[in-house]
């Protein structure tokens, strides 16, 4: 089964001793779980006051590593977001950019995102919205950041009916709340969990809007890959979730 992982990161995480891998080390780690292509961001962008320092590290790290596709992080709440985007496009090629509304202290439902959404559409880019990187119950005690509220995701989808976005790090319960109202989003599965989760999810959510995501290195790569590989769902649905949806969505 071909696998494209839509939620992979380079860089260290300040609160847990997860591996800080080089590009080739990351590619080898993913390959051990059967993942040959991955959309990769850099965790450093989460905490930096301006994400380009770590975006440059990302581009350098994946430049000569086949299968790792850079997804730079943009902070549209900063005055220079157009410069961030322009530099990433020049450094590319890129297929998508990622945003972290909760870590970067702005609301996903804010009107000021309208110009940003128009700009990435003009550039032919997809948007990945990171909802969370960690289970809120286990965060470092002084880090009081919660996942992006469903209310904000709801407002964002309503304001952007022509943009189809990928929610990363979203819970199954959050998908359940948004799915009846909106068709302009897809979701990756790293934080979706109950027993037989994909079998259960496919009863109410189409396979063509789900994508493999592992949240490597914060979560176990194989654990999340096996969630798909061992799922009791039709082979066609596995192929869609494993690679075909990502290939189509990101034009890979």
């Amino acid at each position, binding site marked *: 089964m071909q696998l494209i992982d839509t939620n992979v990161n380079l860089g260290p995480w300040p609160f847990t001793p997860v591996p800080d891998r080089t590009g080739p080390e990351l590619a080898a780690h993913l390959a051990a779980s059967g993942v040959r292509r991955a959309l990769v961001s850099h965790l450093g962008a989460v905490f930096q006051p301006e994400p380009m320092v770590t975006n440059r590290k990302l581009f350098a790290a994946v430049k000569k590593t086949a299968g790792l596709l850079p997804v730079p992080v943009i902070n549209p709440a900063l005055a220079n977001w157009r410069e961030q985007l322009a530099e990433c496009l020049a450094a590319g090629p890129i297929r998508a950019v990622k945003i972290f509304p909760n870590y970067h202290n702005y609301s996903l439902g804010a009107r000021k995102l309208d110009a940003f959404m128009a700009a990435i559409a003009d550039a032919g880019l997809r948007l990945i919205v990171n909802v969370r990187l960690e289970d809120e*119950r286990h965060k470092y005690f002084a880090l009081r950041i919660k996942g992006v509220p469903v209310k904000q995701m709801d407002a964002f989808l309503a304001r952007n009916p022509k943009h189809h976005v990928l929610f990363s790090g979203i819970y199954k319960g959050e998908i359940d709340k948004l799915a009846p109202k909106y068709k302009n989003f897809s979701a990756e599965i790293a*934080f979706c969990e109950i027993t037989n989760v994909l079998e259960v999810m496919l009863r109410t959510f189409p396979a063509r809007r789900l994508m493999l995501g592992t949240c490597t290195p914060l979560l176990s790569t194989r*654990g*999340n890959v*096996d969630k798909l590989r061992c799922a009791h769902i039709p082979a066609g649905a596995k192929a869609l979730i494993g690679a075909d949806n990502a290939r189509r969505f990101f034009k890979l």
Partner: protein
Amino acid sequence: MRIIDVHTHPVFRGLSLFGKPTSLNRVIAHGRRHNIVHMIVLGDVLLYGATPNAEQLRKINNDTIRVVKARPDYFTGFIYLNPLLGERANMAEAERCLAVPGFRGIKLEIANNSSHPAMRHVAKVARTFNLPVLQHSWSTTNIKDRQHQSDPADTALFARRNPDVKVIMAHLTGIGFRGVLEAKGLPNLYIDTSGGYPEEYLIEFAAEHIGADHVLYGSDLPIRENSCTIGRILDTKLSAADKQKMLFGNTARLLNLNLN
């Protein structure tokens, strides 16, 4: 590799993943797809809230009795107790359940914090019948309800106070790195890997600090995905022998299960 899942709730009325009423054959078929050859049934422990009374305990345990009686080859039961009900009620409920073959442990949830004085009643039951105690545990760093939730420090204290009682501290991801260190150096304390998302490096950290002999595979079915909870162990750089201990050998030895 054969697997024993030490932390399951096949009767779980909040979620009807296996249909209504819960179909044991479907649970077994699901388990076998993941090489799980045996499951430990802990009961539908939150069915009546945090502090069930004696009658509610009996109803929950009756469900476990039905499961264990129906398929003793696949299910072993743990007796669900509420320490706050006192010695007599807990001893009586344990004796009632143990009249049925197939019970080999005690399950405690969130009736009280595991440092509560009432825990002596459960320790007495455990000692009397030579049963391990599986205590729900979760870090209270961010979850502030310490009246009901047992921080790993509390469960470790229970194990320290009762060195002749084997204690399973549930939920490796929930207790986190700090919880593993609380458990260090207590030979009667084990940690199960159930609960939470498959956070990286915790399995290796637990093996390094408390030893692979003291880590037991658990899923928290039906709240968690077995493929994911197993995959996080297989994903580690631990030896095949250590993985086998975690997935099968440790629980088989602790509960004296003969599954050949």
